[in-house]
């Protein structure tokens, strides 16, 4: 019986660990010395816990090349308190993002704010920058 309980705990831990690993502190992934401000068209939105992600195509006007950037926001419940809804941003919307680039140097960042080009409305993105990492 004791062995069975242990096996159950191991299985439940394995099942829960993967989603939890997606949650991380700001400092672990982003470099606060690398602020970025980018404007582009929304290509994908992932409204999910623990973080909402959206992706934008940023066009280099000199070369015409397009780079796809991924931006992390806060949890759905957090950004809803900042005025977001699932329909605030749609595929094809032009947005200006202010945020912080990933330490890896990849086209990936943590968004502080998102401004909708069509309306000029600026929404906070629930960034955890400046907060003490969770223990």
């Amino acid at each position: 019986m004791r062995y069975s309980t242990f096996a159950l705990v191991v299985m439940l831990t394995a099942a829960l660990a993967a989603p939890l690993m997606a949650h991380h502190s700001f400092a672990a992934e982003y470099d606060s010395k690398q602020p970025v401000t980018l404007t582009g068209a929304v290509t994908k939105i992932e409204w999910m816990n623990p973080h909402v992600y959206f992706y934008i195509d940023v066009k280099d006007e000199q070369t015409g090349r397009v780079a796809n950037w991924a931006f992390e926001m806060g949890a759905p419940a957090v950004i809803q308190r900042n005025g977001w809804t699932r329909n605030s941003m749609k595929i094809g919307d032009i947005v200006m993002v202010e945020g912080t680039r990933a330490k890896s140097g990849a086209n990936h960042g943590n968004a502080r704010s998102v401004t909708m080009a069509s309306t000029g409305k600026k929404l906070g993105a629930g960034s955890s920058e400046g907060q003490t990492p969770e223990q």
Partner: protein
Amino acid sequence: MQARAFYLSVAFLMFVTPLLSQEGHPLVGTWHGNWGPDQSNRTDLTVVMDWDGKVISGLVNPGFDQAPLQNAKLNPKDWTVHFEIDSKDSSGKTVRCLVDGKIDKLGSDRRTLTGTWNCGAAKADFKLTRDRDY
């Protein structure tokens, strides 16, 4: 014996649930790549596709110059894809583009779509790769 069956069931459900969540229409998602008449003349390309259970919809190059997909079809017998868009040629005139391709690496979340991208008399090819979910 009953305990073993119980734990095997739990383990089975733990692994099957994530696998089931991978199922979906093979075109749904955001695809990036390029198109052009030859390998030295390429233009970056983004296609976003969706499926509502009946119709494939989507956009080519979301943003200022976006074009909605029209007459989009997927043939599941050979995984060929067809869609059309209205685009602008170099003179600004609207031209109908006929896009025909085939899905490869179907089981991968980084599946590819390659084929022809013909706008009016201009013949070109394209290659797209589906973006991985973050």
